[in-house]
């Protein structure tokens, strides 16, 4: 019997297999769908469309300090320097091919959900004009503080999810399988519960995880939710962190953990490790951020899958 993989090994394996499959998607009769990080990607997974997140790839390049080089190219193309650095770095990659990874496969279609921001819609539109792949905009109006309005917003979103399914059926010439969606939702619901459990472990003193662990740990939830391996990964991760808790192991030793902090919004990716070291030297641990909680969904499997998808995606903190 082979030795059980650690969460780190499992993450590497899942990521490699995912990218391998993505690069050979067409050979396997699958399509590549570019998606915003906060999108009802369960519908993609259920329809054998491999989701690719240009944001993740942009982060890899920005963290490796390739931003200046990539963005300069894009500014030379007429885009202003104050547009989103993720978008500029991705458009720069399209032009130059420069990347610190193996790159990402080209899209067959786009899914732009504006629950996180509208920038991604505009960015995907630029890519669509370059390559000709169609864009589906999943419009999530602001989740305003009004019960009746929220009910109508969810109705609007469910209607759009039905339109998304018709759109995918048309592009793929394949009937959508709702039973498969229910199965995918089951995995998504399980992994979300485990992912939140992992994030909530920051409440222990000393905290066994910092925001930096959470940011690394969120990756699989972002790009592999809706799969069994995603559930397995978060089970392994939770077990490992629980073992640290049981042994009283913290990011900093208990007597050194002086400041328990909160981080608002996105990390400064290219200063990621500097910030961790600097704060650690002062006894500071950043415990969590709403940002990482964006992927801790609360799917209700007793509801119609489209309804619980709509309710979850429209209610993200960023909307």
């Amino acid at each position, binding site marked *: 019997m082979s030795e059980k993989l650690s969460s780190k090994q499992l993450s590497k394996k899942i990521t490699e297999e995912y990218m391998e499959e993505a690069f050979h998607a067409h050979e396997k009769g699958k399509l590549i769908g570019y998606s915003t990080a906060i999108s009802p990607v369960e519908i993609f997974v259920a329809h054998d469309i491999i989701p690719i997140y240009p944001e993740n790839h942009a982060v890899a390049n920005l963290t490796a300090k390739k931003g200046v080089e990539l963005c300069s190219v894009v500014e030379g193309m007429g885009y202003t320097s104050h*547009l989103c650095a993720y978008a500029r770095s991705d458009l720069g990659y399209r032009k130059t091919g420069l990347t610190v990874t193996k790159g990402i496969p080209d899209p067959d279609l786009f899914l732009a959900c504006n629950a996180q921001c509208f920038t991604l819609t505009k960015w995907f539109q630029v890519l669509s004009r370059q390559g000709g792949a169609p864009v589906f905009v999943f419009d999530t109006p602001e989740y305003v503080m009004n019960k009746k309005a929220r009910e109508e917003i969810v109705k609007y979103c469910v209607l759009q999810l039905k339109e998304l399914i018709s759109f995918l059926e048309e592009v793929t010439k394949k009937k959508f399988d709702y039973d498969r969606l229910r199965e995918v939702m089951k995995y998504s619901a399980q992994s979300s519960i485990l992912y939140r459990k992992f994030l909530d472990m920051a409440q222990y003193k000393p905290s066994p995880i910092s925001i930096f662990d959470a940011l690394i740990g969120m990756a699989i939830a972002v790009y592999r939710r809706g799969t069994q391996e995603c559930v397995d990964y978060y089970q392994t991760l939770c077990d490992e962190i629980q073992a640290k808790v049981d042994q009283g192991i913290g990011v900093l030793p208990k007597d050194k953990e002086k400041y328990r902090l909160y981080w608002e919004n996105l990390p400064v990716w290219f200063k990621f490790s500097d910030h961790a070291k600097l704060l650690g030297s002062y006894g500071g641990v950043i415990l969590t951020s709403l940002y990482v909680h964006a992927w801790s969904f609360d799917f209700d499997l007793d509801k119609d899958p489209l309804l619980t998808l709509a309710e979850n995606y429209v209610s993200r903190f960023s909307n």
Partner: protein
Amino acid sequence: MWDNLSLKEVVECANDPYPSIRKWAKDAGKKVVGSTIADVPEEIIHAFGFLPVTLIGTQKPLKKAPAKLPDNACSLARSNLELVMSYEGDLFDGFVLPQVCDTTQHLSDIWRINFPDKYVESFLAPRQADRPSARFWVKEEIERLLSSLSNWTGKSVKDEDLQESVKVFNENKALLSEIYEIKRKNPGAITNKEFFALIKLSMQVDKAEINKSIKKIKDSLDTKAKAEGYTDVIMVGITCDPPEIFDLFDEIKINIAGDSLITGTRYLQGIVPDNGGAIEALTERHFKRGFFSPIHDDVFKNFEEVKALYKATNAKAIVYVHIEFCESEEYDLPDLKNMIRKEGIPMHVVDTEYQTTSLSHVRTRLQAFFESLKGGTL
């Protein structure tokens, strides 16, 4: 107040309409509801007995808005926020704010926080407009706005009330369209600055009153005088500010023969169709308007519309007015520019910003462009 204005007075009033709005509201005992651009069905606000006023920035200095919105946020959003935070906030009893992009979405929240004692409602415009769900959503939002205003005022409006408001607003747009037609054929009859001031003021004051002025102005225009030496161009963008930019066109006889501005043709395209119930008709109207960068997902459509306008008017060039820092425009513009240039159409981009105090850089660049367009020294 606005029923007997000359063109000169229209230009003056459009420059700063708020003193007159203040006086009018006091004399008429009316409440005022402000909206930012674009697409709020202002007929509904009017039917409840309010004066709907479209907020289109201020030329007064920024003092408080920069603390709420950073320097690289849309300059119209900052200018509008300044307008209500520092200068005219007390004039308004409430606001209906459309959400068409990220900036307008978050601006609504900032607004609500800064005016906790006022009525602030959002109009959640769909940010996709080509699918049936968008139509469902616009109708829902129109009904929600009706219900929200009803809760606020304790009044309800009937379909006939809405139809009555629609009639007055439609008349305004029809009259302005007639003047535009005159301007196209005879650019000497009315200057660019005067015409766009008429539209801007129409978006901000009582329509029934200004319609009377527009009728008189229309009848007084000299449609027979021979207009020579004019060059027609198309203006593309969202708004054009400061209004002195129009002077630069007028000084050298450049006639704006067509446009896609929200404070221009896109306003005029807002005539509500006469097809039964007012709610259905207002919903229908939402989809009849032309391209709008933040909500439509197709720059090709924008290109086709602009090209069609260019050909229909026999224009000689396209002038794109880019407001700093409109993110939607900035993602669209490089491709739009390439498409227009590939077509062989001369194009010039004017970068402008609300609160601009000097236009010398715009003047020099525009003059050089127009000089090349006219094939010699101006």
